[in-house]
């Protein structure tokens, strides 16, 4: 088989900083993905699922009232219209299909916002595989509707009590489970993070967002967008959106969670305010103290509440190909409400970060922008409503 190998590094970033026990499984996964991504049978099966089950292609929607409000044309890439309500399903369906083909019978996943957990539980129900989802108990509290969904779909949700009881600890717990059950289990990681080949594989599975958006832009406007904007947690919707535009004269903007402000130390901005380090098996940009202890992230949105980021983003930052900015909890909450009222779309709090940045950064210049609306905000209603009530006083 002469399929091109899956990238292990992005500049100096990436790699496999994991226990030896996992190396053979990562080798197998790498080989399986290298083969599957250039295998037409696999790709046809995946495309059919993305079309008939996920509902792709998702629309590139001209957001008229939002455009009017900021004085620039904006298109929203409607990942919120995917089955299960976020881009996470693109990756979950792809990896689960691959795992099944590899003969794995049990799927492990982690989840923060619950979107990836729901997506993986959904894919497992579809394909008849056992599914266990690790979720921090703080996130279980914040994202209760998604916990109910996972249970209904037949997945087992394992609460994680370590640390701040959020996404970082859920990923660690999932990796530990995989270390112990690597023979029959596949770990469906939820973002473009982790040891190689995960960052490249997740990007390959999410690039459908940018591939569609690029041709939809050309169709709608006869031109490429001036700017492409996406929120960055672990970095999967953003890398998936950016990837198709890497070689184009298009500005790429990733929006991280500034939480209570970068200077407060309570944020999730690993690229804007982190340092080079290793978390969950990859060298990237992380939030850590001067002893190298990983710090807890903070964000109002569970999906951005993570002290690391995919290694490819660290590389795109260093090369200057993409720009990374951040917005606070408050800005995101206000954007959440504003878009609901302007467009009749309730965005996920994660996606609201990208919108919040756009609301304040819309220079008068030619061209139009594409923003990845990574998910819908139903899951956030309780949390956002309460927080907005506090803001309103």
């Amino acid at each position: 088989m002469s399929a091109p190998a899956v990238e292990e590094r992005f500049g100096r970033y990436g790699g496999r900083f994991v226990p030896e026990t996992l190396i053979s499984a990562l080798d197998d996964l790498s080989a399986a993905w290298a083969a599957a991504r250039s295998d037409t049978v696999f790709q046809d099966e995946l495309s059919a699922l993305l079309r008939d089950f996920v509902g792709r292609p998702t629309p590139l929607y001209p957001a008229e009232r939002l455009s009017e409000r900021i004085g620039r044309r904006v298109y929203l890439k409607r990942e919120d219209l995917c089955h299960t309500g976020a881009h996470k399903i693109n990756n979950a369906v792809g990896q689960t299909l691959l795992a099944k083909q590899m003969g794995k019978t049990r799927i492990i996943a982690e989840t923060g916002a619950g979107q990836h957990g729901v997506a993986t539980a959904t894919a497992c129900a579809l394909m008849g595989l056992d599914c266990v989802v690790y979720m921090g108990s703080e996130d279980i509290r914040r994202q209760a509707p998604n916990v109910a969904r996972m249970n209904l779909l037949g997945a087992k949700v394992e609460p994680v009590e370590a640390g701040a009881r959020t996404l970082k600890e859920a990923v660690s717990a999932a990796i530990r489970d995989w270390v112990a059950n690597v023979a029959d289990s596949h770990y469906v990681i939820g973002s473009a993070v982790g040891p190689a080949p995960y960052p490249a594989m997740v990007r390959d599975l999410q690039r459908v967002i940018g591939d569609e958006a690029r041709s939809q832009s050309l169709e709608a406007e006869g031109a490429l967008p001036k700017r492409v904007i996406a929120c960055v947690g672990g970095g999967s919707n953003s890398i998936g959106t950016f990837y198709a535009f890497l070689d184009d004269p298009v500005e790429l903007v990733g929006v991280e969670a500034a939480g209570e402000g970068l200077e407060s130390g309570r944020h999730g901005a690993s690229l804007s305010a982190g340092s080079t380090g290793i978390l969950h098996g990859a060298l990237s940009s992380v939030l850590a103290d001067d002893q190298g202890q990983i710090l807890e992230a903070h964000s109002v949105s569970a999906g951005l509440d993570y002290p690391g980021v995919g290694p490819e983003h660290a590389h795109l930052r260093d090369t200057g190909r993409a720009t990374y900015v951040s917005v606070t909890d408050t800005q995101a909450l206000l954007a959440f409400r504003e878009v609901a009222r302007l467009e009749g779309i309730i965005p996920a709090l994660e996606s609201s970060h990208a919108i919040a940045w756009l609301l304040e950064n819309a220079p008068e210049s030619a061209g139009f922008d594409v923003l990845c609306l990574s998910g819908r905000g139903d899951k956030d209603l309780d949390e956002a409503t309460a927080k907005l009530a506090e803001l309103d006083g």
Partner: protein
Amino acid sequence: MAEAAPTTASSAPSPAAGADRIAAAFAAARHDGRAALMPYMMGAFPDAGSGRRIARVYSDAGADLVELGIPFSDPLADGPVIHAAATAALQAGATLESALEACREIASEIPVVAMCYSNMILSTGEDEFASRLAEAGAAGAIIPDLPLGEGAEIKEAMAVHGLAVVPLIAPTTSPERRREICAGAEGFVYLVSTTGVTGERAELPPELEDLAASAREESGVPVAVGFGISTPAQIASIAAIADGVIVGSRLVRAVQDAGDLESAAVAVSEFLAAAREALEGS
């Protein structure tokens, strides 16, 4: 390099010094007709003073070498007991330096091998980290998230400071890879007994014997088995197939469960005495 500090170590850092000290400890045990006993402890757990005391008890109770955990926030290779100990140590303010106090306490008597995760090494700076280990008298380092193929700079810095980088092999390691790891091993080869993270196990896998035999054949250094070993009977059976036995979670749990430092010292001392007994004539 850190400025010259009073060294309590038996030997100043020089290339291969750590590996030599490790080799001597295994050879001495073998000379006694038994496998080496290498208990693990968490540094600065529950605090720096307790760490020193536990290290002292380990050395006095017949440890041949000591594996010293450096508390890290995200220990991917560790199960609940060691993870919780690291978290507790960090909450109590543990640092690399305070964890290494245990090393300083006993490094002139027996070799201490630090178990530390890559990110701490990278954040501190490879050379600075290695120099601090060496200055505290450590003989080597076990880096559970630095498999073959990663971290050349880390391995170089350790070598410059005379520290052996002990590699791990697992039941899932392919035979070719295992041969490569064993051939390049320094100090000893750490054979992970089971497919999993650290933690006590009721049973060890039957394939272990063959795996240990292959590793001993393929490496020029001793092979020690760790992960899951928690009873004298298991210690005796591992001693029959390997050059060293590593006991971790069982001892960390003894410290955790003890109400105070005195009872912790008694508990680990009693366990180590039983462990030494199980090793006699192995």
